[in-house]
């Protein structure tokens, strides 16, 4: 290891340092008491400092040729840059939106922020993997904190159940991933992703790759590995749900990008078919199941499944067009999904989460800005102009058409039409008159800034997408 290696992972190091600082600050402020009494925003400020430092370290490094470190395991190139940006945006918004909730439900702030930061670092490692072993480690570093975050509300049986369910199924899926790594290694003699392209085309390689898809597909909530998502999303404390809904997708799709379009272009006909089939099943099932939901968390869980299907279109199409569309969609998804969850985090129904659709009634009268942000995010999730969701879907469908996958684009467009119904139902309830008396709106300046940033992202990426489009296209230049 050299200083050059260390400087490559500087953003991850900043996050890890901030995570340790948040834990230590919490321990210091708590003293000998069993439960943390420091409900102040100190941990949130430390976490936010870590995220900003990581963003700064990301920004000062000139965008240029790919740099490889740690004996060829770690690569910092354009894709790493965009994945890091998406992961850090998720972490930053996650930190800003949660303090009111953490305080109200007495969740341990130090641990929450430390786990959030370490999970982010895991997703960033996945995006920078040039080796299957590092990809596996990133997957573990991403998912372990999420298991704990899901079970963080110790007084809630549903939260405990969610954590246990997520842990057991996640461990099962990870076992498949490790088996896949072993099979790929057996077939090609290397775990180095940059050398997989020259691997002999033997059945064992195909079996290994299929197992890798199970592990990553679980994290991304692709059908048929999605069964955990609604229950875990519903049971987990809402800030944890919000964060995991985006960071797991960022990590998993970064891994899929590294694996398929980048490492295995020679097998594109084989995996393209497989991923296209999974994408179609995911889009159809996710959108149809979301139609029937009356709980917003479950609705957003199925919406997350559906969006995983859309993003998979880009991976299945492969090539620069598909890959850049995936990266763009990840950035947009972080902003619009966290914006929607952020509004829900402000609400409270008699000491509980306000997670039913009807709890949103009359929001416009009491918190007009929050209602507008929620509506904008819902319009964006549905993929309507002038929001970012529209542009992002356009890029994905264009990539599918360029790759002559008309059926994929058609299913994507049709299911998007279906999704308009349930997203706009939520938006119309929020914008309607009438009031759900039991629901209180908590105002918080910290969360307000976070919501404003998310909404600005949704509109900015939708109206003037030029700068970010250039960034993601530059990121995938190296792809064939």
């Amino acid at each position, binding site marked *: 290891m050299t200083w050059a*290696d260390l400087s490559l992972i500087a953003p991850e190091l900043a996050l890890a340092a901030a995570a340790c600082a948040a*834990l230590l600050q919490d321990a210091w402020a708590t003293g000998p008491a069993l*439960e943390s009494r420091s409900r102040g925003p100190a941990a949130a400020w430390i976490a936010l400092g870590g995220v900003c430092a990581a963003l700064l370290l990301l920004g000062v490094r000139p965008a240029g040729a790919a740099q490889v470190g*740690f004996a060829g395991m770690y690569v910092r190139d354009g894709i790493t840059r965009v994945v890091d940006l998406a992961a850090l945006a998720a972490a930053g918004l996650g930190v800003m939106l949660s303090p009111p909730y953490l305080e109200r439900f007495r969740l341990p702030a130090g641990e929450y922020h430390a*786990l959030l930061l370490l999970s982010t670092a895991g997703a960033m490692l996945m995006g920078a993997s040039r080796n299957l072993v*590092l990809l596996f*480690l990133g997957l573990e*570093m991403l998912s372990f904190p999420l*298991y704990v975050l899901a079970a963080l509300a110790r007084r809630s049986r549903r939260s405990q159940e969610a954590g246990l369910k997520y842990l057991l199924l996640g461990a099962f899926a990870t076992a498949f991933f490790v088996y896949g790594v072993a099979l790929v290694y057996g077939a090609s003699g290397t775990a180095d992703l940059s050398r997989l392209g020259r691997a002999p085309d033997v059945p064992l390689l195909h079996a290994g790759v299929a197992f890798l898809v199970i592990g990553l597909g679980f994290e991304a909530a692709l059908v048929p590995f999605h069964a955990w998502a609604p229950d875990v999303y519903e049971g987990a404390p809402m800030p944890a749900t919000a964060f995991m809904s985006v960071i797991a997708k960022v990590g998993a799709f970064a891994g899929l990008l590294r694996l398929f379009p980048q490492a295995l272009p020679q097998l594109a006909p084989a995996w393209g078919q497989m991923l296209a089939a999974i994408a179609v099943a995911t889009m159809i099932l996710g959108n149809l199941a979301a139609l029937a939901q009356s709980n917003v968390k479950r609705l957003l869980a199925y919406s997350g499944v559906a969006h995983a299907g859309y993003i998979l279109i880009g991976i299945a199409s492969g090539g620069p067009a598909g890959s850049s569309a995936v990266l763009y969609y990840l950035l947009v998804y972080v902003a619009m999904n966290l914006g929607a969850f952020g509004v829900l985090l402000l609400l409270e129904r008699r000491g509980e989460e306000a997670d039913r659709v009807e709890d949103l009634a009359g929001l416009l009268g009491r918190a007009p800005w929050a209602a507008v942000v929620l509506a904008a995010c819902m319009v964006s999730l549905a993929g309507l102009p002038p929001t970012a969701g529209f542009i992002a879907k356009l890029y994905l469908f264009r990539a599918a058409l360029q790759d002559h996958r008309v059926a994929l684009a058609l299913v994507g467009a049709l299911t998007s039409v279906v999704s308009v119904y349930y997203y706009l139902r939520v938006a119309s309830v929020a914008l309607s008159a009438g009031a759900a008396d039991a629901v209180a709106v908590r105002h918080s300046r910290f969360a307000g800034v976070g919501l404003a940033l998310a909404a600005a992202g949704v509109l900015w990426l939708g109206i003037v997408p030029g700068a970010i489009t250039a960034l993601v296209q530059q990121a995938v230049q190296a792809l064939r």
Partner: protein
Amino acid sequence: MSGEAIAFYVLAAVTLGSGVVVVTSPNVVHSAVALVPTFLGVTGIYVLLSAEFVAVIQVLIYAGAITVLILFVIMLTEGGTGIRARQRNEQGAIGAAVAAAMAGLLIAVAVRTPWARLPGTLPTYTPGAIGQSFLGPNLLVFEGTSVVLLVSLVGAIVIARKEE
């Protein structure tokens, strides 16, 4: 059939057989104790692959420490040793069918793959060489694993600590 192949099949049978006991026995203590032959069977396969160091660690950590830890947990849980629980539900048949299909697929794949015979000898997996690799080419993975362990520790404390 060579002696090595016979040894492999015997070890694999021991591993699989006791593994089935682990996931089917209604007695939680039986399940825990059946882990021992499972781990020892895997140890034997490591020895066959001339990975002696990993084999020793497997015995120490898994067959020794982890099994004992699990037994302690059962003992310290209220009514732990008396727990009788059915480990299967009505979806057992579906699960078995999927497992059988997957096993058949993997066997077919393994049989149809032309296994390359590379020249040369195996590198020596001595503790020294493994340590060098941890602090050399695999440093990032080694350090990253410590972060994952930190997360597990924090998680265990956060979930299990006493109510105030």
